[in-house]
């Protein structure tokens, strides 16, 4: 039996004259695959095609050997966590989950049960009866993930699931996804942060400008990035204190205070920076609400990599 769950065969998709993805040939096996790329690289398009939310203009997309487009039966096996998080504002987390799960056609009792279970797994039980409009960014993120995995899908497609989560929340989700991958499910997770992907899997797909630029072990790709400086933006309640602590690290080359709530840190070892950041946040009792690559996305990395490839 083949281990390949998702197969893209020369799949291309345009948005008018703008290229979404171009002639992608890729096989995604069971386990976790990280999808990395800057904004506009085609990550979400690829995920939409796999989830059957759109059709390829050319080529084919197969999930478990079937075309996912308008395939309600196949959607029972797919869990999708979209990037968008503004919906059903007047619903409570529980109502939102139950209403969406009712569409699986497995009855009200089942929907109620699995919704409660998933909310509990994502530590949202206490907030389950609160309206979604009162949720923080991190809670919205978690309720989306809860919806994606509540029905025990075989294929989990997660579009930037770590956005807006604090370090503890990220760690929890990573642990959960790793567990899912170990169970033999197919988990495709996109992220801007290589470090997060590396904690989950060794296998990545790197996309840029609609193409798959690199495919394989994350370590090999990361090693190529060692000499490239990164700028990481951290927004928290005490950026000056954070900067002072981080500047003591040998891999941190500089820190710029942007305003009284954010600091941009320059490093050539983002993995170590992220680990150190977690420690500093806990030790200094900081309240970070954003940690992201300051180059708006990881386009600098990809430009760098792409440049090396072209030369």
């Amino acid at each position: 039996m083949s281990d390949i769950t998702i197969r893209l065969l020369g799949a291309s998709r345009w948005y008018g004259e703008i290229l979404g993805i171009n002639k992608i040939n890729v096989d995604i096996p069971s386990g976790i695959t990280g999808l990395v790329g800057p904004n506009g690289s085609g990550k979400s398009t690829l995920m939409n095609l796999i989830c059957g939310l759109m059709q390829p203009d050319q080529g084919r997309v197969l999930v478990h050997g079937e075309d996912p487009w308008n395939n309600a039966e196949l959607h029972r096996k797919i869990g999708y966590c979209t990037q968008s998080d503004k919906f059903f504002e007047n619903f409570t987390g529980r109502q939102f989950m139950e209403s969406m799960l009712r569409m699986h056609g497995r009855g009200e009792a089942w929907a109620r049960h699995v919704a409660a279970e998933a909310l509990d797994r994502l530590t949202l039980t206490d907030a389950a009866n609160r309206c979604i409009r009162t949720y923080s960014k991190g809670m919205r993120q978690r309720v989306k993930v809860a919806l994606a995995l509540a029905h025990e899908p075989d294929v989990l497609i997660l579009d930037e699931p770590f956005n807006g989560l604090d370090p503890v929340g990220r760690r929890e989700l990573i642990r959960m996804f790793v567990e899912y991958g170990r169970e033999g499910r197919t988990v495709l997770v996109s992220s801007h942060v290589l470090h997060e992907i590396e904690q989950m899997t060794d296998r990545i797909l790197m996309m840029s400008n609609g193409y798959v630029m690199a495919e394989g072990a994350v370590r090999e790709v990361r090693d190529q990035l060692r000499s490239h400086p990164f700028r990481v933006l951290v927004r928290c309640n005490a950026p000056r204190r954070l900067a002072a602590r981080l500047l003591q690290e040998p891999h941190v080359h500089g820190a710029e205070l942007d305003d009284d709530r954010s600091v941009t840190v320059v490093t050539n070892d983002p993995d170590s920076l992220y680990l150190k950041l977690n420690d500093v946040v806990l030790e200094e009792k900081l309240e970070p609400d954003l940690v992201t690559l300051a180059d708006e996305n990881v386009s600098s990395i990809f430009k760098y990599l792409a440049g090396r490839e072209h030369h």
Partner: protein
Amino acid sequence: MPVYELHYQTYEGPRRGAVSRWFAIARYSWMGLLGRRAIVWLFTISWLQFLLRAALLYIMVNKNVQTLLAGFGIRGLANIIPVDAFFFKTMIDWQLPFCFLFVFILGAGLISQDLAHNALVLFAAKPISRWEYFLGKFATVFLLIMMLTWLQTIVLYMMQWAMAPEGSPWATSFWSEYAWLIVPITIYPALLAASLSLLILTFSSLTRNGRYAGVAFAATLIGLASVASILKEAVGSLGFIQSSDWLVLSPVILAHELGDHLFKLKSGLGISPKLAWITLAAFWVLCGAILKIRLQQSMSKGA
């Protein structure tokens, strides 16, 4: 080769309840609506006419109550109002302002909010088809209007039949005189509900702002009624078109006319029933086509 701990099992059994899948959309839309106190009040008020008519029907057949009221000088209630086709048609017509209000409040945001919040992908990623998504949204408005019109009217009809005293026309000649009323009592509200649902969903699918959809809906109903009246007066007869035929351009007049036709009431407007039915069918086809295009466009855009 990787080794996995296969201790989960994806459910692959049959999906139950085709209706319950898309009905969940309607159900949770209502839940959102009923969370607003003003709406609950409006919904309660919308049952007033029913209660008054039910009380009237009860008084008209109950001799004890009539005797009691006669003590207060209120007499001649037995035949205060004839319970016939006109009674039931006006019952439905007088509910229309509530229907418009609810359609305006509930329907305008049904699709536009999903568009605004990019929530269509959530539905598209669930095991329901695009058709089922439409059915869910359609049922939200359709069933609400049916509750305000058909349900109330049919209950009155049943009450009248059940309470009819021996020897009264409703008891002696029910099958020949009144049984047929169940057809227009069902079809007329269904036509109204389907038309209003299609119209509001069409506008809702055209914008990301529910308010615009609501305003466009109201403007269309009012505007077309004005245009139809102006054309009738200003243009009048034109070739094979009679001056009264222009009135079918107004959905409100059209519905009223079809109601009269179904209830076998005399229409004062002189519109040909055939023309009215053709116009209604064309209106549905137009709304259906716009909705199909918009939903296909929006649901295939992805996240």
